[in-house]
């Protein structure tokens, strides 16, 4: 039933950015996995980094989830004035593509990540804190 991915087949366009890879080399990257850059996007010669890698580094200067990085990719920063023309239709990158790019960044030491831990859901204080937070909304 399941076919292995065949790079000879026409690729879904966004996967060109990952050179055909559909899974990250490192990390499993849940949609809520937290990501933070260890430094400012490096300037100078970093041959392993594409403009897309650099854009992700720019977006995760503060901790962000994988889903937020995917949604915010390529969007104009909020501080910038609204363009007079209607905003481009969507922007963003598919989550699976972002995962592959994050795997590269992790491999080269540009980001730190924190995958969600299943054990968290057994911590009673976590539930208590969330309820307090929701009440305060």
């Amino acid at each position: 039933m399941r076919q292995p991915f065949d790079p000879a087949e026409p690729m879904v366009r966004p996967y060109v950015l990952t050179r055909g890879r559909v899974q990250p080399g490192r990390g499993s990257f849940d949609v809520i996995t937290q990501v933070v850059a260890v430094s400012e996007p490096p300037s100078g010669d970093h041959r392993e980094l594409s403009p897309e890698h650099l854009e992700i580094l720019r977006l995760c200067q503060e901790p962000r989830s994988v889903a937020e990085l995917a949604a915010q990719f390529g969007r104009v920063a909020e501080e910038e004035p609204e363009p007079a023309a209607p905003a481009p239709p969507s922007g963003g990158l598919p989550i699976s593509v972002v995962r592959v790019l994050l795997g590269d960044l992790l491999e080269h030491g540009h980001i730190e990540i924190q995958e969600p831990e299943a054990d968290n859901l057994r911590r009673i204080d976590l539930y208590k804190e969330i309820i307090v937070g929701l009440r305060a909304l």
Partner: protein
Amino acid sequence: MASELSERAARPTPKLPTAVKIVIAGGFGVGKTTMVGTVSETTPLRTEEILTDRSVGVDDTSGVEAKASTTVAMDFGRITVRSDLVLYLFGTPGQERFWFMWDELSLGALGAVVLADTRRLADCFPSVDYFERRGTPFIVAVNCFDGARQYELEEVQLALNLGPQVPVMLCDARKLPSCKEVLITLVQHAQQARISVPAS
């Protein structure tokens, strides 16, 4: 000493917050995105996932022409509970054939809200089924469209064949107090389901 670290490594990286996710599920047009937007601190973000070769096997209904090109969109929002604790709400993609996306969202989720519209109650059967089979704690929130309250909550409970422990409540996804109540009920329910309370 810090002076020995390279300039790039010198910046302390912020401690990464604990992240928790909740899934908002239910049939087409039942108010999932509305609920995500009502409680989130920003307007709902939208992200896409591609149905690749890898996952085509999961989707038996797709024709060959759909191969490796179907995208599925989902909305999500964020509530920063504290600087070290962030809650994410994910609306499931409306079409149930995108089960691979449901699996991804539900894995490790604290719990799920199944939104139901009593005019089309059957639309939420697949969601209820799904979370029951996965063992994900869930509650059912009946969205009152146009005051269309055709059933008592007990009737909904019966119609969905829910166990007595599954909370069923009314809600209005457009109103913050109502959405808060729904989420608090879910978190309390999930806590009871996951952490057995010691006797006495």
